[in-house]
């Protein structure tokens, strides 16, 4: 054989390239940017400044009460909705298959996707955090540190869910399911509205959902200065179950 192939770039370089590629793809896409950044910021500003909304904030300022939930919502938009839709269309268009035949491979592709989501979340947290700061939010250092743990746990659970959905349903179905699920979970899943404020049985259901667990974890981090153990258990459990399901059921074709 006379040819010398180009050889693979180092695993780090490959995953870094894919991370950048994924993050840029999301941040470049107008619709994705709307869902991941604009909607949470508008929700935050709306909830804080519309006086007509009569909410019992347990003695907290509105911004302290709502910001953790909005951050949880933002994590869900990027790690679940946006990731599920992008992956579903990439799967349908053969992008996942093509990239998996390059030295990147399936593992590198997955790593790049997860890290790409974390980059987008960093942008989201910065934009939302700064907006909240401008509205008077002053989180504690402990709260910030703990929130990173909560974000990582939530991202793991919701990315697993995104890949499970993207790898098993048709792209058009994913588009509908991912948006609908986000809407339902945001309002009835204990994200923006704390679980104990939800009506009836939803109170008990929401804390078992990954959305409720993430919401409670973020509120715990910023409002109490501690992560509720129950939320951590729920998020880890969902990650294990959904990750297992995605690994087994994901179809590349």
């Amino acid at each position: 054989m006379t040819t010398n192939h180009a050889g693979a770039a180092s695993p780090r370089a490959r995953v870094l390239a894919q991370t950048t590629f994924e993050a840029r793809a999301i941040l470049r896409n107008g619709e994705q940017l709307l869902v991941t950044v604009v909607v949470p910021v508008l929700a935050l500003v709306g909830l804080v400044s519309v006086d007509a909304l009569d909410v019992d904030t347990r003695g907290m300022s509105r911004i302290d009460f709502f910001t953790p939930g909005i951050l949880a919502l933002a994590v869900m938009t990027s790690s679940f909705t946006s990731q599920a839709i992008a992956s579903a269309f990439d799967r349908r268009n053969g992008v996942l298959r093509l990239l998996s035949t390059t030295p990147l491979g399936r593992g590198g592709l997955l790593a790049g996707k997860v890290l790409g989501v974390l980059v987008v979340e960093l942008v989201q947290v910065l934009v939302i955090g700064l907006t909240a700061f401008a509205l008077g939010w002053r989180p504690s250092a402990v709260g910030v540190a703990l929130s990173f743990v909560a974000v990582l746990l939530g991202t793991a659970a919701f990315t697993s869910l995104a890949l499970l959905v993207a790898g098993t349903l048709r792209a058009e179905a994913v588009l509908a399911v991912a948006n609908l699920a986000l809407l339902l979970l945001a309002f009835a899943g204990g994200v923006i509205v704390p679980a104990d404020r939800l009506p009836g049985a939803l109170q008990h259901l929401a804390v078992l959902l990954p959305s409720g667990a993430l919401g409670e974890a973020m509120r715990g981090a910023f409002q109490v200065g501690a992560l509720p153990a129950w939320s951590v258990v729920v998020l880890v459990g969902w990650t294990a179950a959904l990750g297992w399901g995605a690994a087994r059921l994901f179809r590349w074709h």
Partner: protein
Amino acid sequence: MPASAVLDHAVEVTGLVKRYGGRAVVDGLDLVARPGAVTAVLGPNGAGKTTTIECCEGLRKPDGGAVRVLGLDPHEHAAQLRPRVGVMLQDGGLPTGVPAAQMLEHVARMYARPRSLDELTERLGLASFARTTVRRLSGGQRQRLALAAAVVGRPQVAFLDEPSAGMDPQSRHAVWELVRELRDEGVAVVLTTHLMDEAEDLADHVAVVDGGRVIAQGSVRELVSSSEDRTLRLDVAAGFDVAAATTALARPGTAPLVVTEVAPGSYTVVGAVEPTTVAALTAWLAERDVLVTRLTVGRRTLEDVFLDLTGRTLR
């Protein structure tokens, strides 16, 4: 690399079986591809071409048989093979939201010493749409970009699934030139096609696939000259009776000529076509007042062989 230096077959498929929902799409297929040669897998739609290629690329797991690429199993040794194998998928597989040039740069980053992007851009005429989003490219532009992505890593084996699909003649020419150059560099090129001229002009080795098996293979020359037959092609204005023509052309003591309707008004006569055959045919048509609008006599083409092997009915 002593292992690959002695490798005679870059790709070796033996008794490959792949089933979808119990139905065998590939059913005992054997195929070899040599380094420095273009191997065309030729067959009608649904013959099992893409599935075979995808098993070689490690994208599908065979249900039976063995696949070796550069002596390695595409599943077990996927990580070793990925830098050495280039892939162009039939449906493209290009991320659609990014400009063409960025997409190619991204794939190039997966390799340690990729081809020069400037050179590839020049060779395949990518410059005119470098900043256009992949989603907005024409079919031919996408195909050229996909080919660039398949070869940017200087592969030793290139799998190209219908590389000329949807291309204008200029694009196709550029693609064929690059494929020939890859072959001359020693790359084993395996391409699927249902375009006869592509296989005929480009391939050193053709495997005709139908119903999930290879039903004939060899060089184009071997395939088309497997007999001394010639083909007479005939276009007539109207009124040509295939059965009557067959009878009229029959000569005692010689093998009967095969008269076939290719399309209404267009016919072929295959067999030992002699000067007297042409005279007899035109005389017979003149008697019936049928005007011949075109008549050629030539060797069999790959298309004749292909249609003889796979049948002429639509399916």
